[in-house]
Structures are given as C-alpha cells and as structure tokens.
C-alpha cells in the first residue's frame, strides 16, 4: 500500500498550508474581542518599588490594566512554580522576560502605545550575568529563598579516573563553550483567551503540552481543571520553545479577569528578547586513551546557565550529564554537571534537550585524541562506540538496537572513506576553489534519548473510534490524541500507524483537532517521543478497538461504532531510574536514536568565512514511518546545526539582550546551507517501538556543529574554544588575534 508505514503519502495538513487557509493562533478573531500588550521588566535584576498605571489608563481605548493583584495564584513553571505570572510591588524582577502588567485595550495599537506609559520605579540590584560569578559564595542571590545560585548538581562516578589516566598513553584536556540559542520558530507568540459557552476559561494558542498548560492554568486561577480548556490549532514551529507556557497563562488570565475574548500577538522583538533559550554550556575536560585508541578515562565538568528561573533546567542537566562523555565505552568516568541561576534569559527545552551541547565537547576531544594518536577519526570512534549490551558511564547496559556504529560506517563510506588493510583512510578532498581557501572534512557522532527519562512516568493516552459498515469492515477511523503537530508531521505519522494497524487506507483515518476537553493527554511534543510513545498508544488503541469490534460482531449486536482508549506507559516495557545522588549510577533512558554527520567545508583564510560544501547524514531512528518526513527532519535538524555551528548566538550584555531581531540573529538562509545533503536511513529497529520505530525529531541537530568544527580544524588547524565559528572568530584565530 502506498500510504502504509514506510511510505510517503501526502501530509494530512499540507494542502491547507500551501493554500494559506490553515489557521495559526494569530489568525483567530472573535466578536467583541479586546487586545492585550505586556509591560515587560525594564531591568534584569531589580525590586519593583511602584507601578503607576494612571497615564496608561488615561489613554482613550484602554479598558483595563491587569497587575499582580489580579492573579489568584501568582506563580507558574513546568517543573517547579518559581516564576511570578506578574511581578508586583515590593517583589523582584529577575530577567527582562519578567512581566509587570498587561494592558488591555480596544485595539492592538492602543494597547502597545499605552504599555509604554505604565511607569515602574525600580530599585536596581547587582546583575549576575555569568555562571562563574553566580557560583561564588559572595554572589548576589537570584532567589532569596535558596542558599546559593546553584540550582542543581549531578555527580557521575564510574571506576577511578586517576587509575584510568595512569593507564593512558595520551591525554587531551581543555575548555570549550556553547552559546545561548533562540528557537526562532517562524510563528510569533499569539493567541486568544475567552470564556466558552460552558463558562470555561479557554485559550487558543500554540503549545507543545496542552494538558500540562491546562494543569498550570487551573492552578494559577485556582479553578478545577474541568473549568479550563486549551485548543491548539496549527503551530508554526516550536523546537522546545513552547514546552512551558509563554503566553497561554497570560491569555487565560486576561479572559478570567475581563470575561471577554482577549487577543494578543507579540512582535518578533518580543519573541526573541522575552522568551526562553537553549542553555549555554561551559565545559572543562580531560580524556585519556591507550596507544591503540582504547579510551581509558574521562573527567568532565560542565556548567549550564539556567537563567533566572528553573523551567526545565534540571531535566536538561540530567540529560546533559548522561550524554556528556559521548556514546563511547569508558572504564572510568568522573562527571560533574551544574546548572546555575543568573539574571540572563531563562533557558529551557530546545531540540536535543541537553544532548545538543555535549557533542561539541566530546566530538572535539575525540578528534584531538585521534590527532595525538595519529589515528583516523573514524577508526578511533569505531573502536570505542557503544554497542548493544555495552555499559555506559551511568552503569546501564545499552538496549533497544544500538545503531550508532552502523551510522558511522555508512556515513563514512558515503563520504569516501575507505577501509585499507584494516585501517580507515579519509578521502581526497579535491582542490579548493581559490588559493586562499582551504578544505577540510569532519565527522561527528551523537545520540539522544527517546521519551522521558530518569524514572519520569512517560505516558500517552489515545482513543480510536471506528465507524463500521454493515459487514463489520471499517468505514472510517478517528484518532484522538493531544500529540501536537508542531510541524514535524506527527499527525500524519500517527495516522499512518493507525492505518497500518487497522489495515485500512490512510484516507479513512481522521485525526481529531486538539482540544483538551475532547482528546486525552499525550504528554509533550518533545524528547523525540511521539512516534514511539504515542505511536504505541495509537497502535494499542487500534488493536483494542479491533478486539472490541470482533467481540460485538460475535454477539451480533449490530453496533456501528466501536471505540477504545489505550494508555501507553514507557515504564511498562523499559523502566528507568533516577541518578544515584552520590555515584550517578542509574538506568537513564527508555530508548535512543543515533546519528553520524560528516561535513566537507572550505574556509576562506582572508575573511574567516566557512562554506559548507556538502554534508552526509546517517541516522538511526529505527523503522522509518515516512521517508519524506524523515528527510525533512534530517534536513531541518542540519539547518539548526549549521546555525549553531556557524552563525547563531543570542547575545546578552549584563542581562540586556543585544540580538533582538532577524537582522541581528542569523538563522541560515538557503544560501548558507550545505550545497548538498546526502541522507542515509539506518533502520536498526527497536522491538518495543511501533513497527520498530524509535524517534527522530532531535538527533539530526546534534552532530552538525561538531562535524563542522572538526572540518574547520582539518582545514585550518584551529581547535575552536567556542561556537559559533563566525567569520570573526575564525579570522582572529587564523591571524593570531584574540
């Protein structure tokens, strides 16, 4: 069948998208709606002494100004409710994304004009703008109720690293850093809040986890959850940036206070400067290997900048620590991971969730070891990569079809590596396009968990409703799940899984719209988890619905509609455990996906500019559900990785954003992408995944920047101390300027 699992039928949402008829949150309007604008904190760290709304209230068309006094329970946060919804008099702002008030007016222009007239008197406090200062005993505290600014520390201890370093013939050590990164989804924050016909506080917004928003909004408004409702229409990209609430609670509050529809649409500057980012990491490392390339020990210290509030910084750190040393076998490992409060931007989930920064570290030191050992980088990696049953730094045996070696082998062969007399030999790179340009090639591997980790109960519920013909065959199937299609195509993938399980054409499958009052909780569109976790839930519901049908048919009840719900829990087949607080030993992850990317670059030694000529990408996401969407995820991941490696950095100066718009924050254009992208699917199936699928949403972003960095080293001899490798960074390194 041309539309079953493994085929590439037309995406269910794409016709409406090319016609421009798909509605995103900013496309909804309601009769009698008002417009709102946020008054943002003007300081990164200060006590709010006085809020004077009189001048703003005097503006014609202003209806109301909502402040902290209007919020029933003035706190929220996905992991821990440490963020004020609105900062009131006598309390602190901790970053420039904190909110003071919401101006509600008859139209958007009036709301925005009036918000600038809200006068706020601040008592500025010292700004903590870097993690090293933040960790000092005498640093100003960001949160008064905590003993210091260290939000969390994870130790991992395996074996004895001193012994490991004593056994090593070569040791490399150093430091490397990664930047704040903006999600830069194309659809700015927007939505509408209103009271529905049943009196429920209702929000239409782009979300990744509608039921968690529901839970948080109910808590904030002190309402039972059945008095709150969230509808998720088309989402214009998310990448983790919509995992925690950003506008949902504000819209709910507006509706709750005004009892009328209130719409809000942020501009790009608000989107970039007032929302969460990818964590910057600061790594220190020391790694040893024997002459034959066998790794003996890794010692790693990493510090992540949590920004002003916890958000998901602790779960991100959990991931980062487990992946810090890379997908390699180490007899001895000593890892310390910290996440630290500052007055910088709140940092949160972003594609990779703590698995994106580590490859910049571990793939750098693997190439440094290869260079010291005089060994080919592919050969060194193949010697040390984890396989099925191998023990990771957290002491667990790897499971679920470990395809990483195969991704490396296939990527290397595609890029022209040859195996000669038992050794790997890198390809000839051809002549650079000009005498002042140099070519280089770089390889990087990476891996990532699929599903929530460390004992977190990862569950997803789906409902399937079958409409039956007279003979009991299926006329149509409706799938109900709150798995949000943020653009990745999960709706189509789940429909394909349903069609294949039910044995019907895709055209007979409908996926219900996401409305928390109608569809069950699927967890978030994150952790590369929906194909695997929600795919299992949909498959389970389909099988249960078929069983129900067969039973009622036997009883000849004449039923024309049968349905079933199924709750899939990751722990049912793959239990995970939290870190041991002393040794860090645990069983961290449900499943994994793996990938290798290779970059061929040309560096202009006169300008420092890096041109990526070609990339090869081999990813193991298990069974590929839809090859066209698979390629789309790989290419989109590479796009984000190219930006990460070469151009993207959200810059703050003393807590004040300096990159505020797309003319200052550079996501790659089509001309900045590799001229060619060769993609290979390595399908090592996970027997616990639906049809053997794992997950793909994040892995393709992980190795890209590291592969480019290694290629730059191959071309120029420069070991980068930080990314992005902008023209300026490379030019300064080549010309000996710091």
């Amino acid at each position, binding site marked *: 069948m041309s539309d079953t699992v493994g085929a590439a039928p037309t995406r269910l949402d794409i016709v409406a998208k090319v*016609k421009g008829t798909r509605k995103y949150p900013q496309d909804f309007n309601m009769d009698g709606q008002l417009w709102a604008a946020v008054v943002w904190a003007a300081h990164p760290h200060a006590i709010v002494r006085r809020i004077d709304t009189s001048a703003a209230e005097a503006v014609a068309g202003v209806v109301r100004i909502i402040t902290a006094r209007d919020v029933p329970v003035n706190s929220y946060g996905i992991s821990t409710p440490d963020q004020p919804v609105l900062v009131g008099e006598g309390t602190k702002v901790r970053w420039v994304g904190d909110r003071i008030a919401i101006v509600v007016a008859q139209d958007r222009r009036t709301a925005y004009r009036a918000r600038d007239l809200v006068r706020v008197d601040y008592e500025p406090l010292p700004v903590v703008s870097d993690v090293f200062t933040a960790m000092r005993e005498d640093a100003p505290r960001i949160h008064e109720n905590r003993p210091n600014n260290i939000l969390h520390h994870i130790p991992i201890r395996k074996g004895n690293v001193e012994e490991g370093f004593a056994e090593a013939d070569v040791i490399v050590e150093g430091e490397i850093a990664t930047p704040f990164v903006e999600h830069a989804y*194309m659809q700015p924050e927007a939505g509408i809040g209103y009271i529905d016909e049943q009196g429920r506080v209702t929000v239409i917004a782009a979300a990744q986890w509608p039921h968690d928003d529901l839970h948080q909004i109910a808590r904030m408004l002190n309402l039972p959850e059945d008095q709150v409702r969230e509808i998720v229409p088309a989402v*214009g990209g998310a990448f983790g940036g919509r995992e925690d609430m950003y506008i949902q609670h504000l819209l709910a509050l507006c509706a709750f206070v005004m009892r009328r529809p209130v719409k809000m649409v942020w501009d790009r500057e608000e989107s970039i400067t007032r929302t969460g980012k990818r964590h910057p990491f600061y790594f220190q490392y020391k790694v040893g290997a024997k002459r034959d390339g066998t790794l003996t020990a890794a010692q790693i210290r990493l510090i992540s900048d949590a920004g002003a509030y916890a958000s998901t910084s602790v779960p991100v750190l959990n991931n980062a620590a487990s992946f810090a040393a890379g997908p390699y076998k180490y007899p001895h490992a000593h890892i310390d991971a910290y996440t630290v409060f500052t007055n910088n931007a709140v940092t949160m989930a972003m594609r990779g969730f703590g698995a994106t920064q580590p490859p910049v570290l571990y793939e750098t030191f693997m190439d440094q070891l290869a260079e010291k050992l005089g060994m080919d980088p592919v050969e060194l990696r193949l010697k040390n990569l984890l396989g099925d049953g191998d023990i990771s730094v957290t002491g667990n045996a790897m499971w679920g079809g470990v395809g990483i070696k195969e991704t490396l082998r296939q990527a290397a062969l595609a890029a022209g590596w040859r195996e000669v007399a038992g050794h790997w030999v890198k390809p000839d790179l051809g002549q650079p396009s000009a005498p002042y340009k140099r070519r280089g090639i770089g390889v990087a591997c990476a891996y990532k968990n699929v599903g929530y980790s460390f004992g977190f109960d990862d569950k997803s519920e789906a409902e399937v409703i079958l409409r039956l013909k007279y003979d009991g065959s299926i006329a149509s199937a409706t799938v109900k799940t709150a798995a949000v299609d943020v653009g990745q195509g999960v709706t189509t993938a789940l429909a394909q899984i349903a069609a294949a399980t039910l044995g019907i054409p895709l055209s007979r499958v409908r996926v219900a719209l996401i409305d928390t009052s109608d569809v069950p909780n699927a967890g978030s569109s994150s952790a590369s988890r929906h194909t695997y976790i929600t795919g299992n839930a949909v498959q389970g519901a389909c099988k249960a619905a078929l069983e129900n049908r067969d039973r009622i048919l036997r009883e000849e009840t004449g039923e024309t509609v049968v349905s079933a719900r199924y709750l899939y829990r990751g722990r049912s087949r793959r239990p995970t455990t939290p870190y041991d607080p002393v040794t860090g030993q645990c069983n961290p992850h449900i499943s994994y996906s793996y990938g290798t990317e290779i970059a061929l670059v040309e560096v202009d030694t006169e300008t420092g500019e890096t041109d990526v000529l070609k990339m090869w990408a081999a990813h193991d996401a298990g069974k590929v559900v839809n090859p066209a969407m698979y390629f*789309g995820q790989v290419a989109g991941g590479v796009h984000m990785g190219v930006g990460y490696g070469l151009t993207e950095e959200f810059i703050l100066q003393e807590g004040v954003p300096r990159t505020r718009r797309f003319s200052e924050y550079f996501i790659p254009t089509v001309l900045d992408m590799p001229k060619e992208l060769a993609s290979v699917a390595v399908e090592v199936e996970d027997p616990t995944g639906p049809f053997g699928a794992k997950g793909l949403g994040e892995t393709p972003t992980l190795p890209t920047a590291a592969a480019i960095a290694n290629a730059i080293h191959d071309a120029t001899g420069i070991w980068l101390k930080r990314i992005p490798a902008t023209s300026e960074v490379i030019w300064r390194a080549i010309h000996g300027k710091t």
Partner: protein
Amino acid sequence: MQTLEMNVNGSDVRLDIHPDETLAEVLRDRLGLIGTKIACGEGECGACTVLIDGVAVTSCITPAMKAHGRRVVTIEGLSGDRELHTIQQAFVDSTASQCGYCTPGFVMATKALLDANPNPSREDIMRGISGNLCRCTGYYQIVDAVALAAKRLAEEEQP
C-alpha cells in the same frame, strides 16, 4: 484617514485606512486574508510576501498606500479557479512544508521567480528564494518544489 483603492485577487476594494498601516495589516485585519503571514515585521523573512503588479514585496514593511491603484495578488488569489496552482501542487508533492507558517511566502516568492525566469537553474532558485526564511525544512525540499513547479509549468505551456 486616507482612501486606498486597489485590486486584490481580482476584486476591486476601497478602504479608509490610517496612512501608517502596512499592506500586511490591511490584507489580514481589514480583508481577512490570513494566508499572508507576519513573522519578523522588518522585511527579513519573506513570510508576508505578496505580489504588487507581479513584483514580490514584503508586505509587512510596505505601506498599504503603496498599493493604491495597483493589482495585489496574495496566496488566496494564486490558484484562480483551480484547487491548487501548479506551484502549490509542487510544494505538496515535494513535502516542502512542515509547520507551514513560511509556506505562503515561499509560494509567492516562487511565483515571482518563475514569472521572471521560467527555466531557473538550482543556483537561480536558491538565489530567488534566499530572501525567505524557513526554520523547519532546511530548504532542500523547497528547492525541489520550485524545480518541480518550473518543470510542470513548462510542460503546461506545451501545446
């Protein structure tokens, strides 16, 4: 207030607008043509691309009065009587849209590109759409879609 008269997707419209309203605002808020997307507000990303007298413009920074007396085509007007224009069908067949927020802008930029150059090389295509940003696709399937559209349009031209 000023009076704006223009032809939008084949229909004449007459509106009283504020002189500082952008074309994107007028199209979306006054005419309900929501297919024109606003993403950056500074003409950097191309999501708001529409055609004025056949020329692609970023409507988020185009004063609406610039369209006075002229013909504007938005994504809603591209396909005419057909369900999908050939360019739109090529985007569907190439899986050239993920979140889709940038898609109408890319489709309109493609229309302008192929009107000016019906037989573009891959390099021409890349230069032609380099003013449009996409955060999801990595652009390859979009470039494929433009090439496919060019090929099909040329075939449609054949007698």
